[in-house]
């Protein structure tokens, strides 16, 4: 069976405010879906509901037919939901390499091993190193994550997600705040990931040129509700997106 990610009437309320409003959507393997919408539209919150950082007020989340709605975030991560965060979310005092190695170790499922030495698992370390190579961060491998520049922290965030080798990749504005010459590393990486053909990729992105380049499909959130869904060209051109982005970017 295809591992489809599905949200059905997914809803969350914060007090009186409905931040995600009955969003029903299916995401197919091999498809990169861009999620657009103005700030505060509920994109990050939608991600949090899918990857389990928040519990919904209503609705369901399924992956490959399994109901995830009531599973914890770590349980969902182990089932193949991988998440990179919009606000950089690293292990600040640990080295860049260790940040990624922890993700590789989580993927390998060896976290409960307290008898061997972490340093003796050269295979995990090598896999972490390979991910750092992909985002051009090997020169900073021994540096604590907290002292990296903003752009490098964003890259590390992406490297951690890649290291998890999930079935579902969720990128939340991966290039936000990056300089123009830093962006290609991340965008090329996502493009190659897409070319591998069998992953579900969700990308929250404001830059319309990036959306046009990478996305197979675009959905638009507005005030928490899904208001448009279709081919990038037609959605980006549609009136509703122009309205939603009026004054933001187009």
């Amino acid at each position, binding site marked *: 069976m295809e591992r489809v990610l599905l949200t059905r009437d997914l809803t969350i309320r914060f007090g009186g405010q409905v931040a995600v409003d009955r969003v029903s959507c299916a995401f197919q393997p091999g498809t990169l879906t861009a999620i657009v919408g103005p700030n505060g539209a509920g994109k990050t919150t939608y991600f949090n509901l899918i990857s389990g950082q928040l519990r919904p007020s209503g609705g369901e989340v399924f992956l490959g037919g399994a109901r995830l709605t009531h599973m914890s975030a*770590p349980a969902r991560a182990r089932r193949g939901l991988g998440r990179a*965060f919009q606000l950089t979310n690293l292990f600040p005092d640990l080295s860049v390499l260790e940040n990624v190695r922890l*993700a590789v170790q989580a993927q390998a499922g060896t976290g409960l091993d*307290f008898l061997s030495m972490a340093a*003796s698992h050269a295979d995990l370390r090598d896999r972490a190193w390979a991910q750092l190579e992909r985002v051009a961060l090997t020169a900073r491998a021994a540096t604590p994550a907290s002292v990296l520049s903003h752009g490098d922290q964003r890259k590390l965030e992406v490297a951690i997600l890649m290291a998890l080798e999930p079935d579902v990749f969720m990128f939340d504005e991966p290039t936000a705040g990056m300089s123009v010459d830093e962006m290609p590393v991340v965008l090329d990486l996502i493009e190659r990931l897409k070319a591998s053909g069998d992953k579900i990729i969700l990308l929250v992105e404001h830059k319309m040129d990036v959306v046009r380049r990478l996305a197979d499909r675009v959905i638009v959130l507005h005030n928490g509700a899904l208001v448009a869904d279709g081919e990038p060209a037609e959605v980006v051109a549609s009136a509703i997106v122009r309205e939603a982005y009026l004054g933001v970017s187009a």
Partner: protein
Amino acid sequence: MKPLSGDRPGHPAATALILLLLAALVALPFVLPGARAMGTGGRIAIFVVLAASYDILLGYTGIVSFAHTVFFAIGAYAVAIPLARGWGGWESILLGTLAGAVCAATLSAAIALLSLRVRAIFFSMVTLAAASLAQLLASQMRDVTGGEDGITFALPPALTPAFRLLAEPLFGTRVDGRMLTYYLILAVALILFLAMLRIVNSPFGRVLQAIRENAFRAEALGYRVVTYRALASGLAGGFAALAGSLFALQLRYVGPDSVLSFDIMVDILLMVVIGGMGTLFGPALGAALIVMCHTYLQLALQSMPQTVRDLPLIGPLVGPLLAPDRWLLWLGVLFVAIVYAFPAGIVGTLRQRRRA
């Protein structure tokens, strides 16, 4: 140490201090013969284990417990109770030690599992309550614990001062049961410390550090944070109990004041913070420092020459400050000075300087 855990103190000065501590403890009975010095040495070895086990919680996992003395006490009573009832010698020690460690680990993990689900601060409060409850139980359950008076007991003959292993003194020192006890404690403490060093450098130990750094992110990677925290608590509790069993052997007495008092909890915290949280070597140095301060600061003030007190002008001013019962004041001054000079603890700050 490298083949065992790959971990090193991380700075030449820290390495030197650790090696000095180890050498001093090993040579102690021959350099400073006598019960007093061996008492201090044994206490250092035991508190190295106790402080290191607390560091697994505070320094590596980032959770604050006030119940560490409870597990220390469980280990101590688990050895003392059977010995006091004369249920065999070595078997009592061995089985009591094992049973104490298992009980303490289970209890510690259970407290963590039940309370850490809520919030880290709730855990701290539960441990505070557990510590008070344990004090109450130890002083009320007179039939089992001997109440406030505690339990005095005899060790197997080979561990008593009257026992002579060698007929002739070695390097001018009698090799008696007291020395055997000391080396038994030292050897076990060393093994326990190395075991903890190995654990914090294992894949599991790395997850603990990740949880300390960012529990939210650790969960997003798929690590069940509650499980890891509970296991860390269990391990820390188990090691604390083993230290407690050693302490029972050393004192040949266990009572609420000697293993459960809140002063000990404060000492453990000081040892870890002064030495450097999350370094394991640091708390070892911190333990040596605090135990020595406890023993020798008072002595040093007592032996302050009378001439200082008799000095004109300065004498009346300084005299009261140098009274032997003011040693706690000086410990406080020393503590503030160390924290000022080493904000991340001794080993923590040395490592930072090395990196910078």
